[in-house]
Every structure is written in C-alpha cells, then in structure tokens.
C-alpha cells in the first residue's frame, strides 16, 4: 500500500501518516476479510489492536492541539 494522501500539517507528518496507515492495516487484517467459520482462527490479540489505535491517536491529538489558535 502506498500513502495516498498526506495530511497538510507540516512536520512529523510522515510518522503520523505511517501510524494511521498501520491502524488502517490492523483494522482490515484483523477486522475484515474472508473468515473461515468453524475453523481455528487465531485468538486475536485485541490488546495490540487497542495499543496501535492509541499510539496513532495520541500523535494526532498532539498535532491538532499544536495547531489550535
């Protein structure tokens, strides 16, 4: 996947955008896709998912806060 659109905020954008991309990846691979019912699907580490979301979102909150007038 390529980063399609980059946010307009200057500085630290690439790191943040990578975080959002990672959250989108996790969302899709662990929350969507074809599911094999009745078979062993891994017990997904929900905690990892939550941590990833948090990491990206703390970054986004910081960016927005620094931008506020």
């Amino acid at each position: 996947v390529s980063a399609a659109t980059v946010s307009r905020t200057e500085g630290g954008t690439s790191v943040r955008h990578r975080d959002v991309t990672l959250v989108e990846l996790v969302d899709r691979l662990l929350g969507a896709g074809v599911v094999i019912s009745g078979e062993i699907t891994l017990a997904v580490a929900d905690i990892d998912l939550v941590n990833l979301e948090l990491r990206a979102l703390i970054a986004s909150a910081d960016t927005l806060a620094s931008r506020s007038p």
Partner: protein
Amino acid sequence: VIYVYAIADRDAAAPAGPGLGGTLVERFKEGRLAAFVSHDPPGGTQPTEAALWQHEAVVEELMDAGAVLPMRFGSVVLGEGDLRELLASRAADFHRALARVRGRVELGVRALGRLPVPEPRAGESDGRRYLLDKLERRRDAAQIADQIHPSFDVLSVASSRRLLPSEHVLFAGAYLVEREQVGEFERRARCLDHERADLELVCTGPWPPYSFAGGEGK
C-alpha cells in the same frame, strides 16, 4: 496447518514474494477457484506488525495481477481436505465476491479531530451525564460523517462507515473504487482536508478489498 492468505481465480499466478516466516506461497486449485497458502509458517500466526505486513504483501501481489478476496489475518485450515471443502462449499459466494471486486480497489478515509467539549450539566448524576455526553459525541460525529462521507461515497461502488472507532477518530470510511477513480478520490480527499480547518482527513490505499470480500457494504 495450512495458512490461507487469499482466494482468487483458478489461474491467478502465485506470488513470487515470501509468505509468513519466509515460507513459500503456493496455489491450491479447486474448481474455478484457487487459494493461496503457506504450509506450517514458522512462528505461527502471531499478529505482529511484521507478520501483518507480510500477509498484506502477499495479498497485494495477487491484487496487482487480478481480482482477489483477502482472508482475515490468521486464517488456517488443518489440511487439504478442509481447504477443498472451504472452496467448494462457498464457491458461489466467492465467485460473486470476485466479480464485485474485479477491477476495483479499497480506499480508506479517516477523519481525525476533536469534538467540542460538552457543556457542564448541573444537577445530573455521573452515570446520566456520562451517557448524555456519549450520545452527544455520537451525534456530533454522525454530523461530521454526514458532511464528509457522501463526497467519497459517490465515487465508490460500495462503502461502509464507522463512527468514533477510537477517541480522536470521528469516523472511518471504507470505499470500493474503480481503479481509474483512485486519482480523483485522492484529489477529493486533499481538497476536503484543505477546506476543513477543524478536521484532518487521511486517505490510505489502495488496499486489497478486505472490507468488501464478504457480503457487507451498501
């Protein structure tokens, strides 16, 4: 176990790149379908960041060559009999889904921002205040989604949206888009991002059609 990355047309070429844990990715044919698999990936199916990207790389290579239905990460079957059974018993669904995603890719949009801080509510109990605030946040997020989502929805053949998937994400949308429309979609995302000082819109993709591989969508 046999780890399954994706389902595609019978004659789709197996990806040249490595699978999980450096394994070979093989094609397993059944009827007019093929599953793309690795046998006994070392390290199992722990969802580490590297493993997720490895799964993604295999599916993306398939996506570049044709229509593909990505499996959820961690999908395994015990043997070839189960794999054959999976492909045969759900063949009609898989064919329908392949037809739906052919020539199309998935794009994601996330709207990041902060909702207004709720007015203090005098005289309400904590529990009631919590619920009212939550309701208000949801209503505010829905309002923003209503302003943003339609601009992308019209460029897509199917879409889904979620409100407040996490604290500072007001909404997350997934869009199934014709390949030729990807440029226009990205331009629109950039424009809207510039127009909205209160939000940050991040568009990601093109992704394999994870969100449209099953039966959901509009």
